[in-house]
């Protein structure tokens, strides 16, 4: 997903706020919906949210950076979440993450590939512990993984 144009960012925010009503308590819901729509939280959207809900921008950013689910930068076309839950950890999740980082040439804290194809995010636990270790790509879960299956799975995605 590329960088979102300012107009679209504002219009999306407006539309979502209209649905909830401009109330302080809907701040998190509004931000979640914007992110779902645009894949991240563009700055222009957050400014709009701040104006309409009458919450200082600093507070909006505080919420946006507090919760792990929010992203302030554009994400790749495919979102890979790597479960780092305890069951996955003891069954080799760190090696799966290493393999993804290596295969996709990520590093130095970069989560998204240069071609904007993949974003890799580690999450706390997706509650699929019975099939550990697990990753999830665009909502599809892959269980009982081993590091050497990673390249083959990545090839499924365009």
């Amino acid at each position, binding site marked *: 997903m590329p960088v979102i144009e300012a107009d679209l960012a504002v219009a999306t925010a407006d539309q979502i706020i209209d649905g909830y009503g401009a109330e302080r308590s809907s701040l998190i819901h509004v931000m*979640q919906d914007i992110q779902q729509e645009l894949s991240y939280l563009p700055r222009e959207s957050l400014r709009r949210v701040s104006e309409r809900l009458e919450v200082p921008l600093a507070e909006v950013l505080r919420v946006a950076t507090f919760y792990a*689910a929010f992203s302030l930068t554009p994400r790749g076309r495919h979102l890979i979440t790597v479960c780092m839950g305890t069951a996955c950890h*003891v069954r080799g999740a760190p090696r799966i993450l290493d393999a993804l980082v290596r295969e996709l040439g990520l590093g130095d804290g970069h989560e998204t590939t240069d071609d904007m194809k993949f974003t890799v995010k580690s999450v*706390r*636990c*997706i509650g*699929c*512990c019975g099939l550990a270790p697990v990753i999830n790509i665009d909502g599809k879960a892959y269980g009982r993984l081993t590091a050497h299956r990673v390249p083959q799975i990545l090839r499924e995605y365009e």
Partner: protein
Amino acid sequence: MNETTQTFLIRTLDDLEEAGQAGRRRLYPGRVKIKVGVGTCGIAAGASELYRALIREVREKGLDVEVAATACIGLCQREPLVDVQVPGRSRVLYGDVAADQAAPLLEAACRGEIFGGHAIARTDADEEILTDTRHVLASKAAVDGVVPFGNVPLFSSQLRIAMRNCGIIDSDSIEEYIARGGYLALLNALTKYQPDAIIQMVTDSGLRGRGGGGFPTGRKWASCRKAPGDPRYVICNADEGDPGAYMDRGILEGDPHSVLEGMMIGAYAIGSSEGFVYVREEYPLARQKLATAIKVAEQCGLMGDDIFGTGFNFRVRIARGGGAFVCGESTALMASVEGRVGEPRAKHIHTVESGLWDKPTTLNNVETWANVPVIIERGPQWFASIGSQGSKGTKVFSLVGKIKNTGLVEVPMGITLRKIIYDIGGGIADDKQFKAVQTGGPSGGCIPAEHLDLEVDFDRLTEVGSMMGSGGMIVMDEDSCMVDVARYFLDFLRYESCGKCTPCREGNQRMFELLDKICNGHATEADLQLLQDIADTVKTTSLCALGKSAPNPVLSTIRYFRNEYEAHIRDKRCPAGVCKALVKYSINSALCICCGRCARECPVKCITGQTGKPPAKATKKDKEEGKVGVPYVIDQAACVKCATCFEVCPVGAVKRT
């Protein structure tokens, strides 16, 4: 996933019975019925494909078979799971059924035969815990060669109260829920008991909060009822943040109405008409199932105004979490529902008096709420007859890690760890040696083999330095490094600390750094002492339970596995072979069969050799024809220690030291 649910308006006991009959017709349709477990675990193992394949086969061949969806059946290890019910016969549970086996499975079912090799166990009668009745499926054992559930320790040691309907009903169908006694407890609560009597029943039952703390639920409700203020709220905490735990997801996906019914009874008891369910971000399917349940309950008049014509009103909304562990803490969760940053506050004034928007609020966990209807229907004495001295009823555990049968298990409190791990769990995977079981999530600890006969309940677990937590039970074997596990939890906690109080914010970071130093082989004995000192400080001085319990993983591993810490510090050795900086992979040239698999799979191409006959086995002819290989060797300087070679070697020639 089923066809549209017919809507009934339910106002009386007669209406409820009518809906129940409709539900029974769905549960026992008088023809072959096949249920697929399409919960999150099942889907990850391919259950959706299987479900679609079954439907396609039935349609194409015009079979008289009903295909239905249910959620988590509990035995995740054998997903995808299928339950086949032939009229007049026992219900049979099958495991490891792939989509391309849909046709033979259907053929066998239509002939009333067993689908070979996949049968796990059979049920001759369905138990209904709420109504204390049995629905007999087969008058005599009508299935040969399949063991009854009662003869399999995995199932016979379990008692399903909170998970009474999970894997049995289609959670989108309110009729099926009602058919198994659902919403009768609500009707009885509203028409037969005063709120104080309900609270007394919950108190007498001995129910304690299943979210981790184990606070007596009845006492919480009583304080909330007494607190002045209006409106008042009930909240269901479904922010199941402990890694390695998924009981609440299982219940929400499998039986959301049980949670809603429990909340409504609680709301009536404390005088509330509004509730929230706070569901974590990572559980989209649970959220969807819950949303459907709320919608259907509203359509039936079981939620909204004047429920059962009693004047009791109740509405509930779903709040989505944002991926913050600390929001499982009650005050942080309430801040998050209000749209703020999820920071806990000091609890000089309890949330039962001043909670959500500073109003009296009763917050309980998913599993706690799901127990409430059963207490009302079966009575507090019945509930209190199950369990141990101080912990009544059952507890759902997610039994995962290095164990043979992974899954969700519900057992009476007071059962021993040994029984859970060896009888129900089937022992350690790959017949390795048990090392520890981790309970209580990041707030808990690792319990060693010497405590395997511990009776599991709230108090016993605390005594050995762990805690019940929400019910994660992660089994570790000889290949798990206890220092690495402690580092793992502290890495988790340093990120999840909200940062409001210094001991937790700084202490967890420093403990992580020290553990990382130990794992890398750079630490000294003094570091171990420092680690313990920081742990004690964080434990004593943090603001909320997250910080107060954060040192538990460190303290419990030092207490029981000090020798592993010492091996890392003194000998620069990781006995379990986990800590990358301290392990080395090499290939035993005498065992290498020169197949070249390791070199092909190596992501950094640091393994060299040549394919061919292994030199030890090569004949003279092989030599003449140049067919002799060269055993493979790992370039230690380039190796990234990813363990791929170790995993793929077909003969175990790769050594980890």
